[in-house]
């Protein structure tokens, strides 16, 4: 965290934010161009109020979710990681695990300057792989591999990607940070027992900031009591 002068680190942050903004604007414009150009080229009669009416429910649902999620992802994968993952999606099942395991493998902490670098690299590669696999599938092999992938015997495997992924991700971090893990796990499990797992999953985006806040709060209390074996920098920092 201390290598590289702060000017260099600021220059990098500016570069990433500018790159992120510009590429996000261009991607967005290109995405909207698909229905827009189609509508104009084929002179299709579209009632825009109807589109807004149909999209309204989705927007009401996804816009606040997007805000809660991005704020939650940011401290883990950094600004660059969030810019990239929001464009290509599949954050929970691919981008976040790629970044977290990349950081573990490189021995760098999430949230550090090094962590941000490894996150960006991992997420960029992950996006590249998914996009390539889909392109190849769409153009050539999709027809041939789908029958195999849809075989009933494989169904339980694909239905359980998320729990398998989580088991593999969670374990090393929990063992390394038992004290930090107690509060968020106890609280999350309690939420599931009270409201039911399905409910918690559906409103995951809203529970997320809550659990993360509780987790930090609990850690902070332990930190102040010196439970992490280091002296709180209290007197100086405050």
């Amino acid at each position: 965290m201390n290598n590289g002068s702060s000017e260099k680190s600021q220059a990098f942050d500016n570069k990433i934010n500018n790159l992120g903004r510009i590429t996000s604007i261009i991607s967005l414009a290109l995405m909207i161009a698909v229905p827009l150009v189609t509508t104009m080229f084929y002179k299709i009669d579209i009632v825009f109020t109807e589109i807004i009416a149909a999209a309204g429910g989705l927007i009401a649902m996804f816009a606040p979710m997007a805000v809660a999620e991005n704020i939650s992802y940011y401290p883990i994968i950094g600004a660059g990681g969030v810019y990239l993952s929001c464009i290509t999606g599949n954050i929970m099942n691919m981008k976040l695990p790629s970044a977290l395991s990349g950081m573990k493998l490189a021995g760098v902490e999430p949230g550090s300057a090094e962590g941000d670098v490894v996150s960006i690299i991992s997420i960029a590669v992950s996006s590249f792989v998914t996009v390539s696999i889909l392109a190849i599938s769409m153009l050539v092999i999709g027809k041939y591999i789908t029958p195999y992938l849809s075989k009933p015997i494989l169904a339980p495997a694909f239905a359980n990607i998320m729990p398998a992924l989580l088991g593999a991700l969670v374990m090393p971090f929990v063992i390394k940070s038992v004290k930090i893990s107690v509060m968020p796990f106890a609280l999350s499990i309690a939420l599931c027992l009270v409201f039911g797992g399905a409910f918690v999953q559906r409103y995951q985006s809203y529970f997320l900031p809550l659990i993360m806040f509780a987790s930090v709060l609990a850690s902070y209390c332990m930190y102040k009591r010196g439970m992490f074996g280091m002296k709180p920098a209290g007197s100086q920092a405050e």
Partner: protein
Amino acid sequence: MDFKEVANSNLMFFLCSAVIVFVMVQAVLFAKAAWKRGADLGIEPSTMKKAMTNAAIFSVVPSLPIVVMLMVLSVNLGQYFPWLRLSVVGSAAYENMAADIVAKASGLSGIADPGFDLPIFTMAMWVMSIGIIWGIVFNIFFMKSLDKFSKKAKESGSSFVPIFSASLFIGMLALMSAPYITNTHNSTAIVSFISAAIAVLACGQIGKVSGVKAIDDFSLPVSLIVGMASAIVYTNVF
């Protein structure tokens, strides 16, 4: 005109490809910037390469269900637009839901309804495109400020910062895991979770004992597959 002609037209291919190519360019630009910054920070190129390989190998498996979904959506929406949607922000579940909402709003039974015509298809394209862009919009307007604000807060250099980051992502992993580990009705998910957790620890141990560090480095893809495979075994044996 039949909507399938439009959906499978060269124009549609061109419009969708433009987005996808740009998204890949974006990934390359970010990766290049991060690589350079990584070198400045003194991260070994071999470490960054390992993170890239890990992300690439890992991302293959979670991409496979998306291929199946691509084939499923292509039946009703033509091959190019679902290809675009699943390559960028969208997720399989979202795209299906968005298209379905439009079909139902137009008085049809769903996207497979024979009454699904060009205007409805175009409307579905619009709704699918604008319903889920909000994470990107948020980034364009607010990510830079969030990044600046948070970097300032970190400059205090408190020894709490790494604990803070760890608390956040362990909180996130806890919330994501809890619905699976508390759902006793779906024991397959619990089996997958535990097998993957054991596999990741085993990889770490084997890597340490044998001195082959690669086993530990690639523990995530390996454990993911172990977790998924155990779901197959469990379903078929019990």
